[in-house]
């Protein structure tokens, strides 16, 4: 016996250790300590066979493992709850909003209008809306308008995107995409960020975009006021403009302000962008954001479009609402709008329950619209500028199908929920045969886990059973359902 005891104790400890591998890792240490302590007690008292005692550890470990599995299953089931559904959608919407806030392009797309009175600040294009993103106005046109369009515009400015090298301290050269701009451009924009310093001895002024200041000038704190050489000519760094204030088309990193004499050196065929401020009295309907100028030149009538910055800034939101409208119109063509028949039997579908059900549908719809809205804007404007045709195509191409899919899912999800507790129905059972459809009922039955009712979905819609039908279960069915049914019940 005395020789048997140590060997059986060692074997028992081995069994306990082996069984411990079945225990969930979070509980393992404590579980081992308890079993080892009890085993030690059994061995000391010689109260029983340690090996036989330790074999129980396997059952104990197995129970803990299966209980964890049951817990996970319950957690998965809880996902079918209305609150869980709204929380998930809310989280997706919040993530979308965060994506919009963190991606600079998307943040600009959602930000308020940057320049003062953007309804009267227009970009002139000779190629419709597409021309607002490409240089479409020739220098010759600009010169002509400057003298004879004072009745249309209070101010007119011009800039031409070029690539130039900026030499700093004589040795460091930075290659920048910049715009050669007329000196009245900062005044037209009327933004504090674009305030130019008084011209210093006829030197040109260079405004640098903040992102370029960080990337190309290593966030040099003393950059403003320095004299640099742009393509061999001296220029003073006049300011660093925040990216949010930099909404001019052309994708430039810097703006070189030149006076009329310097700008006059450009050939007449050089193309650029023309920005103007409209006279209120001339364009009473400027709020629509788009107007045309017709000009007769050498016997031919030329048409120029004036597209307001307000119109361009509103594009992301306007386009999204257009996609939303389109999706709502197209929805009936892709899915049935009816949610099914929910008869108010035995007073169970009372007003409050019905109200909650419709509010849940409304909340889901609002959340999916927000999700699609935020994510489509984040996707479209993360890498493309506001107003560019690429961003418009991406936004329209993503938001319309996504909204259509989201609305379909919203309706599908609503149909698959118990109208009382709003949890997803479960345990689908096929009943009947399609061949007997006209003789007997055939379709799928879903049941509420809390015992509120059964949903009948016909296999083939008929004139007497055209849509899914909800059947309320009365109290006599309660014994078949778990006791927590009352928690989710009416």
């Amino acid at each position, binding site marked *: 016996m005395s020789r048997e005891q140590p060997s059986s104790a060692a074997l028992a400890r081995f069994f306990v250790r082996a069984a411990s591998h079945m225990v969930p890792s979070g509980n393992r240490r404590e579980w081992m300590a308890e079993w080892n302590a009890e085993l030690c007690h059994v061995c000391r008292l010689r109260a029983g066979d340690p090996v036989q*005692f330790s*074999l*129980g550890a396997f*059952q104990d470990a197995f*129970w803990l493992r299966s*209980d964890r599995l049951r817990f996970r299953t319950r957690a998965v089931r809880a996902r079918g709850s209305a609150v869980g559904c709204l929380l998930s959608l809310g989280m997706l919407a919040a993530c979308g909003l965060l994506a919009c806030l963190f991606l600079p392009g998307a943040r600009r797309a959602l930000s308020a209008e940057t320049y003062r009175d953007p309804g009267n600040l227009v970009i002139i294009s000779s190629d419709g809306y597409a021309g607002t993103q490409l240089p479409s106005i020739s220098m010759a046109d600009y010169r002509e308008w400057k003298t004879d369009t004072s009745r249309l515009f209070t101010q007119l400015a011009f800039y031409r995107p070029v690539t130039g090298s900026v030499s700093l301290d004589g040795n460091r050269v930075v290659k920048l995409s910049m715009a050669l701009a007329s000196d009245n451009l900062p005044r037209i924009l009327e933004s504090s960020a674009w305030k130019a310093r008084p011209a210093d001895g006829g030197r040109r002024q260079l405004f640098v975009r903040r992102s370029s200041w960080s990337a190309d000038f290593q966030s040099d704190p003393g950059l403003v006021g320095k004299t640099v050489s742009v393509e061999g000519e001296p220029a003073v760094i006049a300011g660093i403009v925040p990216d949010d204030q930099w909404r001019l088309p052309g994708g430039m990193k810097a703006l070189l302000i030149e006076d009329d004499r310097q700008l006059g050196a450009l050939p007449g065929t050089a193309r650029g962008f023309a920005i103007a401020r409209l006279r209120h009295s001339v364009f009473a309907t400027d709020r629509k954001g788009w107007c045309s100028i017709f000009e007769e030149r050498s016997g031919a009538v030329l048409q120029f479009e004036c597209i307001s910055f307000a119109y361009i800034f509103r594009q992301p939101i306007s386009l999204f609402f257009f996609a939303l409208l389109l999706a709502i119109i197209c929805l009936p063509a892709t899915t049935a709008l009816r949610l099914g028949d929910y008869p108010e039997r035995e007073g169970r579908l009372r007003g409050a329950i019905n109200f909650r059900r419709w509010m849940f549908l409304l909340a889901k719809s609002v959340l999916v619209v927000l999700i699609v809205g935020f994510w489509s804007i984040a996707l479209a404007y993360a890498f493309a500028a506001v107003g560019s045709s690429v961003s418009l195509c991406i936004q329209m191409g993503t938001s319309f199908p996504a909204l259509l899919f989201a609305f379909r899912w919203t309706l599908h999800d609503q149909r698959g929920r118990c109208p009382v507790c709003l949890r997803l129905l479960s345990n689908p059972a096929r009943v009947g045969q399609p061949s007997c459809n006209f003789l007997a009922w055939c379709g799928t039955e879903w049941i509420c886990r809390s015992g509120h009712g059964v949903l009948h979905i016909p296999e083939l819609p008929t004139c007497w059973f055209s849509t899914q039908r909800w059947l309320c279960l009365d109290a006599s069915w309660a014994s078949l359902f778990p006791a927590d049914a009352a928690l989710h019940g009416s």
Partner: protein
Amino acid sequence: MEARLSHTAAMVLQAIHAGYVYGFGVMEVTGLPSGTVYPAMRRLERDGLILSKWEQQSIADAAQRPPRKYYRLTRMGKSTLEAAAKRYPLLERMIPQQPETERV
């Protein structure tokens, strides 16, 4: 709502109530194997009918053994046991109270 206990669970609960606070003690007094008693105690603890605690290290050191885990009834456990006693009238006679002198 009070949980309905199986006979085994009721026996384990009664044993703990009677003063057999360690797993092995419950095994001895109920005659149930370790593979039944420990999972039953886990289930009772999960359902909030009993609570487990580790005994103080000083007590274990004095007895020259590792500290053991002991169990005691919660308020809900006591009320559940009262309900179970009505259902299983012989429970109290099967597992009488442990004499004070033998209590650990």
